[in-house]
């Protein structure tokens, strides 16, 4: 190995074809699995110490987490049901990340998507279910897509930072949702918890046959695979990655950066909007403030843990879906507060980000033998 810069990054990236050892060829891939995995283990260990400080046995903690997430077929179904919206909201962060944008407003697009989907279903009262379902899917995607496109447009044409604008739009989306749900869209029968009317049992999208997992999971899988193909196997995706790597180079070779940003942001928002639609049409059956359950924020963590790779998002979403599914069991068996899942998520996030410093620095993966 001759190209060994002080930084070590380039050395891994352009490992020469001569002396093709296994580690040298797959060093980067192994890093992408090993380092986030180590970060996850480290975070779990720190969380174990944290819980031990409150007099709980960390081994019990890990046991119940496993039980609640993957221990029984019931917990698997619970996990997968939660993974579905997480895949979709994670794409809302991962797609713009290809352009070097940090969008953290998936929660807002989810809420607007849910509102649009509910509105579409309620506007078509006597249509056949298939038509309504199609309209609901389209409305959810368009609603969420336009919402994030707003952030993208502000960034491109007004220079407004997209991270902050997308986060502000979360609070604005929540206000719009509350305003409509307590106002024109309110079901007069919903007294304690203001909600819209139900979209109707016939229009719900139901479960995958033989399971209690709803079709949202399939939507999520399709969206993730389609995003992967779009980013890594199309000219459009290549252009997006070029623009993300060096925006000036992209402009010089004549790429329409504005169009790229708007399209990617629309797709990202559409994905989160689809998550909102799934929550309405497969879980809640109506729109109310319950929808702001934090899937949008956990999705950011999923995207970062998956290193913004759409395919890697799938297993990571299942993992984090499992952690949040185990929250209930932790509450019942160990008496931990419901916020413990959020604490763990925060610790994982911090560890994963800190582990970014390790890439290209693990000696045996550089193939120095």
């Amino acid at each position, binding site marked *: 190995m001759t190209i060994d810069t002080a930084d070590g990054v380039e050395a891994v990236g352009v490992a020469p074809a001569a002396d093709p050892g296994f580690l040298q060829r797959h060093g980067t891939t192994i890093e992408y699995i090993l380092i986030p995995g180590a970060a996850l283990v480290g975070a779990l260990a720190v969380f174990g110490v944290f819980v031990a400080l409150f007099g709980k046995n960390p081994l019990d903690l890990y046991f119940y987490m496993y039980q609640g997430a993957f221990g029984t077929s019931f917990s698997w179904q619970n996990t997968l049901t939660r993974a579905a919206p997480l895949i979709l909201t994670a794409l809302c962060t991962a797609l713009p990340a290809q352009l070097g944008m*940090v969008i*953290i407003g998936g929660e807002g697009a989810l809420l607007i998507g849910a509102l649009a989907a509910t509105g579409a279903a309620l506007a078509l009262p006597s249509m056949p279910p298939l038509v309504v379902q199609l309209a609901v899917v389209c409305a959810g995607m368009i609603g969420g897509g336009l919402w994030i496109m707003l952030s993208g447009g*502000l960034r*491109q*044409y*007004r*220079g*407004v*930072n997209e*991270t*902050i*604008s997308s*986060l*502000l*739009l*979360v*609070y*604005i989306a*929540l*206000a*719009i949702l*509350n*305003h409509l749900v*307590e*106002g024109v869209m309110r079901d007069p029968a919903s007294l304690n918890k203001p909600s819209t009317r139900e979209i109707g049992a016939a229009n719900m999208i139901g479960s995958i046959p033989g399971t209690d997992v709803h079709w949202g999971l399939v939507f999520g899988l399709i969206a993730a695979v389609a995003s992967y193909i779009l980013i890594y196997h199309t000219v459009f995706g290549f252009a997006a990655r070029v623009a993300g790597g060096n925006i000036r180079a992209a402009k010089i070779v004549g790429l329409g950066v504005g169009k790229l940003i708007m399209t990617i942001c629309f797709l990202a928002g559409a994905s989160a909007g689809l998550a909102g639609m799934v929550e309405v049409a497969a879980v809640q059956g109506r729109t109310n403030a319950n929808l702001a359950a934090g899937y949008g*924020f956990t999705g*950011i*963590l999923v995207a*970062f843990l998956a290193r913004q790779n759409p395919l890697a998002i799938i297993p990571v979403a299942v993992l984090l879906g499992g952690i949040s599914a185990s929250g209930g069991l932790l509450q019942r068996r160990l008496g931990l*507060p*419901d*916020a*413990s*899942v*959020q*604490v*763990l*998520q*925060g*610790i994982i*996030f*911090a560890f994963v*980000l*800190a582990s*970014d*410093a390790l*890439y290209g620095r693990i000696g045996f993966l550089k193939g120095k033998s």
Partner: protein
Amino acid sequence: MADGTIGLWTVPLAVFGGAIRVSTPFLFVSLGECITERSGRINLGLEGTLVMGAMSAYGISYLTGSPWLGVLAAGLAGSLLGALHAGICSLPRVNDIAVGIALMLFGTGLAFYLGKPLIEPTAPRLPAIDFGWWSDIAQLRAALRINVLFLIGVVLAPVLYWAFRTTRWGLLIRTAGESSDAARAMGYSVLEIRLKATMVGGFLAGIGGSFLSLFYPGSWNEGLSSGQGITAVALVIFARWDPMLCLWASLAFGGAAALGPALQSVGITSGYYLFNAAPYILTLAIMIITCSPKRTLTGAPAELSITR
């Protein structure tokens, strides 16, 4: 004017009172973030710091009976979170915006976790100074019951303005923010300057949180902060990293946030939630007006990742 019957004057009066009362957390968080961002780093985690500060202040005030110890505890909790942010950010190739998002999750989660037993009990609150003793109008007196923390914040803004311009520390922070190479060439550690700036920023943001739980609204629950921390971070951007502009902007925000409840108190309830979103809409609108794709913002520290 007979007392109690001031009719529609209630609204501007409540907005004025609200501007003073609601603006305090905005003011402290934005001043803290101003220091951090001037040193060349952005800490989006101040939302979590604010909630953590609110919880620790309430807890310590309840346990010791002294709300001022609570304020101190909130500041210390905030600077610990700041140290954590700066510590992770000082590793190579770590994105400070992403770390901020992580600490936002972690701070709020930790506060809810530790604060679970604090929802029930009542803690001693911070005292207020009655500036409205000369008036007979109840609403005016209510509006003029001003907390000491607000006055401290109002004094702090010009002090920071002066400190940034004339003191050695102010110059060092600005150097680290404008050009880390220059600071390094002068023999200072940029990471150390940023660590200190982030810790001081976290201290102030924590105090802002203590105001929420110890004065207004004056209790601890999980819905205490709804994005004030993040709004304050955005506020710094259109205050052009100038502490005095942070003060005026915070007052404007407080007024905007008080608009919904004020209108509700005179019976205008439609659009309550939309008025509640007024600070966010205002932030976004001002950012749209003042930003431009063609130039970087005037007054922006050159090292700040958000402007590059």
